[in-house]
Each structure stands twice: as C-alpha cells, then as structure tokens.
C-alpha cells in the first residue's frame, strides 16, 4: 500500500464521477490535439507542396482558387490559357524556369496532371519502379494512387473528363502505366503524372473532330503516338494549343516585385503567389481555429471545475477517513499529497485519453476524406507540443486540488472523530 494506490482506490471507488471528469477533460484536450496536429501537418504540407514554386500563372479568376488547383490539386482550375502567351513569359529574363501544366482529367478521383519532367523534379520525386513518361499516354502513378488502384507498371486504364469522379470516360485512348513514384507524403502521392501532350490528345478525341478534317487528324495522331513528348520546357506543337497553369521559379528577388504586376496587367493571364495566398487562407481559417480553441479551453475549464467539485464533495464524505489516516500515523503533508495525487492522476488519465482520442478523431476524419488534402495527413505522428497538453492537464489537476487539499491539510482529527 502506498499513497498512489490509495489515491487510485479512491478514484475507482467513484467510477462514474471519475469517469465523467476524465472524459470531459479528455474531450477538451482531444480538440486541442486535433487542432495541433492539423495545424502542424497542414502548414508543413502546404509549405512542402509549394516549395520551389514562386508564382502560379493561370486564367483570370480567384487567385486562391488558382493556387489550390495548380499547386495543391484540390480546387477546380480557373480555366485555360493560350500556350503562345505562356511561351512569351518563358523568354522573360526574370523567369528561371517554367513548368507548363495541363489539368482537367481524373481517374477515379485522382487527378491526371500533364507536365514535363521538371514537375516531379521539383519535389525531388524518386521512382519506386519503372521510368518517367516519354511517349504520349504514358503515365506515372503517385504512391497513393498505385496503392488504391492496385495498378502496376504495364497496366492500362481509361481517364475520365473533369476532375471529379463519375464524369464521362475518354474511351479512345488508354493510359499506360510506365512508372510508380515513391511515397513522399506530398501532393504527388495523389496524382497521376503524364505529358501535356497526353492531355491534349485525349481531348482531341471528342472536340477536335468537327473542326479538323478527318484525314488530317488521323495523320497527326499517328505521328504523335510514335513521337517522344517534351520532357523539358514547353511541348512542341504546330497548332495553337492551350495550357491550364504555369509554375514559375524566379531568377532573382526582383522578379517577385515585377513579374506578378507584369502578368496581371500586361496579359490575359493572372499570377498568384502560393505563399501569399496560403497565408491569406490561414488567416481566414484562423477564425475557425480560434473559435475551436476557445471551445476547447471552455471544456477544459468546466472539467477542471468538475474535478474541483468532485474532490471537494468527496472530501466532505471523507473527513472521517482523513482523520482515521491521521490517527494511524499519516501526517498532514501526506493527506495534502493524497488529494493532490488524486487530482493529478485524474487529469493525467484525461490527458492520455485526450491525446489518444485526438489522434483517433483525426484518423477517422482522414479515413472519411481519402482523396482530399486531409487524406494525406498522418494521424499517428506525435508532436512535442502534446507533452505540453499533458503539462496543461496536470496544471488543471493541481489547480483544482488546491482548495480540497488544503482543507484536508487543516482537518482537525480530534474534532472529526469525536463529532459522531
């Protein structure tokens, strides 16, 4: 027998009250844990996915939408831009590198992105198997896509038009898997990469026929399927083609000032900076996060009050017990410690349960949302800040036990024992 065991016995002697308080505290702490995890991983992921991209150029519209669609592949693209105008940009001396991208197709919700080899290069992606695409309709799968679809190198599938599941299928040409990327925990995991040309030719099936003469079309198609695609820079084409977005790297800091203005006022395109738009987004989300944090603090406060009341009430019933403990040799200090231990054990259980609950909440959220950005979060990563949650919880426990503990300290044994 020791004080720990005695405190524990008292806690388990009142399972309902103890359980309620632990659960309430755990709930508050779980909310904080989830927020902490999401904030940490989300920001990290957002920054990681946007690393190396200084500017995104696309059709006019919402700049935030452009960033979400072009960098994170979560929103709808703003529209298309003419390729000759994009090519003009690449001759600008402020531009170090441009990655042209064509978006707009999906396979079972996973987006098919047409780009050159610089795009996986941007994320330093490594191949798990196979090679990068060199011919039209060759695709490289992100790790997540490969897992979910079960496709290996050599398999073929049909893409669908649009970026959400259930649109009509492009049934004329099958995509052929030539490589699978290693899992890196970034946006590439959820993407199907191919050449810009592949995206163009897929869309030619349905759209080009009325305008082009049939013979012409057939001819150019045959030629293209044999050809290699552009692995650097812009795809080569004689026709006037369209792109969806351009990812730009600046040559020097000066570009950050001049280039966006140049594009926004001098062309029919718009330029948006990922870091600026994301900080704007976090600002918007910040209100919601603050609100949730406030709610969590209120719940923790209530649970603290609950623990205080539980300890205080049980103290009234236990004045005899405390007096007896003194009579069999316990010192005042030991009784003080006994009550503090109860509060601390209670809140420690709350903290551990809260953190586990938080991680469980997050894994549930993630499993409900597999293809979104949230889907690539890791629910079982533990952060250093979670230790602080434990510290906060223990602080709540100590605070809630102060008054009851002091009351226990001051209990007069003689009075207590002779009252009855």
């Amino acid at each position, binding site marked *: 027998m020791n004080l720990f065991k*005695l405190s524990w016995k008292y806690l388990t002697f009142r399972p309902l009250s103890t359980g309620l308080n632990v659960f309430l505290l755990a709930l508050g702490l779980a909310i904080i844990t989830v927020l902490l995890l999401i904030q940490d991983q989300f920001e990290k992921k957002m920054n990681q996915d946007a690393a190396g991209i200084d500017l995104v150029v696309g059709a006019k519209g919402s700049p935030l939408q452009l960033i979400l669609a072009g960098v994170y592949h979560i929103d709808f693209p703003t529209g298309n831009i003419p390729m000759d105008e994009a090519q003009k940009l690449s001759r600008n001396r402020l531009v170090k590198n441009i990655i042209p991208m064509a978006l707009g197709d999906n396979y079972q919700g996973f987006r098919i992105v047409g780009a050159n080899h610089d795009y996986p290069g941007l994320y330093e992606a490594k191949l798990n198997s196979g090679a990068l695409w060199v011919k039209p309709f060759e695709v490289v799968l992100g790790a997540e896509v490969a897992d979910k679809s079960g496709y290996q190198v050599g398999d073929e599938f049909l893409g669908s038009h649009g970026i959400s599941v259930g649109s009509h299928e492009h049934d004329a040409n099958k995509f052929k898997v030539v490589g699978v990327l290693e899992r890196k925990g970034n946006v590439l995991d959820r993407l199907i990469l191919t050449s810009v040309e592949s995206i163009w030719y897929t869309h030619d099936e349905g759209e080009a026929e009325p305008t082009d003469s049939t013979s012409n079309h057939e001819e150019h198609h045959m030629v293209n399927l044999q050809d290699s695609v552009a692995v650097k820079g812009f795809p080569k084409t004689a026709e006037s083609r369209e792109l969806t977005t351009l990812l730009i790297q600046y040559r020097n800091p000066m570009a950050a000032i001049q280039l966006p203005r140049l594009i926004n006022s001098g062309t029919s395109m718009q330029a948006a900076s990922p870091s600026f738009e994301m900080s704007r987004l976090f600002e918007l989300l910040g209100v919601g996060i603050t609100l949730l944090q406030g709610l969590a603090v209120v719940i923790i406060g209530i649970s603290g009050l609950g623990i205080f009341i539980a300890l205080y009430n049980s103290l009234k019933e236990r004045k005899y017990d405390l007096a007896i403990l003194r009579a*069999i040799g316990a*010192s005042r*200090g030991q009784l003080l410690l006994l009550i503090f231990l109860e509060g601390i054990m209670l809140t420690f259980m709350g903290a551990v349960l809260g953190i586990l609950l938080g991680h469980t909440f997050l894994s549930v959220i993630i499993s409900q949302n597999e293809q979104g950005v949230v889907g690539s979060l890791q629910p079982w990563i533990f952060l250093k800040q979670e230790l602080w949650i434990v510290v906060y919880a223990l602080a709540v426990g100590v605070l809630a036990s102060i008054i009851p503990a002091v009351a226990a300290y001051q209990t007069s044994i*003689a009075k207590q*024992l002779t009252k009855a």
Partner: protein
Amino acid sequence: MMLFESKNLTYSHPGQLPLSFPDISLQQGESMLVLGKSGSGKTTLLNLLAGLLQPKSGEVILSGKNMAAMNGQQLDLFRGKEIGIVFQKPHLLAALNVTENLQMAHFFSKKEGQDIDKLLTELGLGEKAKSSVLTLSEGEAQRVSIARALANSPKLILADEPTSSLDDENTEKVIQLLKTQAAKIGAALIIVTHDQRVKMHIPNFVEVKAV
C-alpha cells in the same frame, strides 16, 4: 518504570472552563477503564492520551517519551507506531478491502507490524480478508477496526466506547479480544466507556468528573 503515564493533564476547550484529569499509570499488559458521565470530558481525555489534542499543561509519557512535547509530524508517526486507537464507530476506509485497510496502518506508520492474515484469522475474520468493508456486519467491522489498531503491535491501545453500538454477544467478544490481544503483544489498554457490560470484565478504573 511505568510503560504509560499521564500526569497533571489539563485542557481547555475554547470559551470553557479548563478541565483537569486524573493521573493514569499503567504497566505492560495492564488494562483500565475511564468512566464518567456524558460531557464530563472522557473523550477529551482519550484525545489527549492519543496525542490527537495538545494538552494545556501536563505530560503524557509512553515508553519514556513525552508526547506532549512532540511536534506535528513526529507525533503523527509516533502515534502510528506506538498507539492503536479503536473508535466508537469502526470508520473503515470504504474504498479499500479489509486487508488493505490494515495495510494502511503499516504504510503510514512505516512499521512492519503484525502479519495481517494471521491477525485476521485470530480475530475470526480470515474469510473476510478480501471483502469490501461495505459488506461487513457491525460486529465484524468493529473487529476489523480492532485489528487495524493492533496491526502495528502498539504499546498502548485506546478504545473510545468500542461497544456502544454492539449487542451483548459482540460486546463480550470485543472486550475479550481487546484484553487478550493487548496482553499478547504486551500493550497497555485503556477503554473509555459508560457501558456497564464492560465494567464486569475490567475492574481497574479512573473516573472523569466535570468541574
């Protein structure tokens, strides 16, 4: 030298006249009753003898140590080690089972004390060792509280009206237990009571009179 002595004890409750108590001295294995009417200060005397109250003047000496001169923590530990107290009501810790209740006495007094299982068996409680104290009858509970008082093999056993809520049969049992156990461990036994049934068993007594 006497095992236990109290000399010239006085105590004053706030706002009341000071009480003075008869001197008590006991040898190993001796027992004594403290008699007196309700409100005469019997229980106050018991609290003084147990070191639960500090006397206004006088000395309480147990095996050569003056308890009146000890301070808080020292006194608590000394009480835990050397004095076993049986209260009017059993006051067992409801959150613990019978054995655990007795283990607490060992823990707080930092003393090995008697073997708990053996003690419980001697007191006819062997089968109740793992029972919740809430399932005990009044008599059983009082015997457990006696076992708790004996657990540390104290030099002095104090009992405050231990039989007031028991029937004749249990009273008989409790008094015999206290006497035989005190004799066995060589402790002095003081019982505060106004119960006539107890007087038949212990002839030796002092009387506390209100001033």
